[in-house]
């Protein structure tokens, strides 16, 4: 096991991503942040508070569970459905930023796009990921990346966040079976 991002690295990456989001969208007025449970939701909350401290206003932030939209349900035991919370302002005509911890095959994001499509029609959909580990299986690309981590397929990337795991850390583990 090797540590790829320390707690400090994570904080720095999230701060940078927050700035990049504001820059790309020319401020926070039309932004909606949607975290993908479980860890993406906590990252969204953190980015949201960083942005509000920069801009001085609250950013509409919610969660988007994609379980019911997955295309790999048959390959796994049934999963618990996590909450989906769309901010009251909705997503119609908004610049939605999807936030996840690890970008891998791209299938989660495809499911998220399907889920969004059922809810409304945003002006743009952007993607932020704390880690991009490569091995995409779909034509999907992140707009904001905390760190590119070249990995082999047999490795696994483990993200720990203090809200759930008691500490912040990203590590790479060898062939977990």
């Amino acid at each position: 096991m090797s540590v790829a991002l320390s707690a400090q690295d994570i904080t720095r990456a999230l701060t940078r991503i927050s700035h990049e989001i504001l820059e790309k969208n020319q401020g926070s007025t039309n932004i909606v942040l949607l975290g993908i449970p479980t860890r993406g939701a906590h990252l969204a909350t953190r980015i949201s508070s960083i942005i509000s401290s920069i801009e001085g206003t609250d950013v509409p932030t919610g969660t988007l569970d994609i379980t019911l939209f997955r295309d790999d349900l048959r390959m796994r035991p049934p999963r618990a459905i996590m909450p989906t919370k769309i901010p009251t302002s909705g997503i119609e005509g908004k610049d939605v930023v999807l936030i996840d911890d690890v970008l891998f095959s791209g299938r989660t994001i495809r499911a998220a796009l399907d889920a969004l499509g059922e809810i409304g029609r945003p002006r743009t959909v952007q993607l932020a990921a704390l880690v991009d580990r490569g091995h995409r299986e779909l034509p999907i690309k992140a707009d904001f990346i905390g760190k590119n981590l070249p990995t082999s397929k047999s490795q696994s990337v483990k993200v720990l966040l203090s809200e759930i795991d008691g500490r912040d850390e990203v590590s790479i583990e060898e062939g977990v079976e």
Partner: protein
Amino acid sequence: MRHLLSISDLNKSEAISILDTASELARVSDGAVKKLPTLRGRTIVNLFAEDSTRTRISFEAAAKRLSADVINFSAKGSSLSKGESLKDTAMTLQAMGADAVVIRHPASGAAQRLAENHWMSGSVVNAGDGTHEHPSQALLDAFTIRKHLGMGGSDLVGINVAIVGDILHSRVARSNVLLLSMLGAKITLVAPPTLLPVGIHNWPATVSYDFDSVIPHVDVVMMLRVQQERMSDLFFPNAREYSRYFGLNGERMAAMKKGAIVMHPGPMNRGLEISAEVADSARSVITEQVTNGVSVRMAILYVLLAGGALEVGSN
């Protein structure tokens, strides 16, 4: 979990997880999303060998909201009414590639027979078998009770429930006694002695013949339908006398606790086991039971069909 035949197929955490899943599904359905792709490409057969429009429609709506293909196979005009055996019907459904069969049948144990005979490989959901069980009804009842009275917890500890009426012939009562007691509720069965089964003493419930003495102490009054055919079989002298002792009317409703609710699995016999005044009162959650039925049945289909139980994926 492959089948849902009886509440005894579930342990407490599985039951709670179905209720939690139903809560999330209800929220998704309440919002803008009307249709989820979750069971796209799956075929669900509603095999109804007994008339029950409401249960069939509820399962059909649940399956369609999850994008499953639904085939309705009902008693009238089907081969079941022409004397085809359950085995042959099952093998037909297997040949048609049914991933799940939702079965309503007048014979107790029919769902279990269908599931345990290797006649077909799909999941079996018991939508009411004879006088045995009706597990999806109990789950939607528990869901409704939890929504109204749950003290924030996931179970029903501390809640008192009276189930009133024809316990002997009620699959709704059997499933509810098992489920509500598993979730921690205290149950009192209220009925004339003729409509209580012999051998009830081991059930996790107390028995009373006196509705009036029970009413002020319960949080939920669940009324059961009195079937017309019981009238002629010596279970009670006549409808009027049944109503007098075991019907829920305005007077009895007035004796209920503050916040207590009235439930009924439908269809109701207004004026017999329940008065119109009660059925249409603010305490009645009867139409809400119907609404919740769809979410709970979505959750059941999700739990049975969404996962590939055989393969366990790595992270």
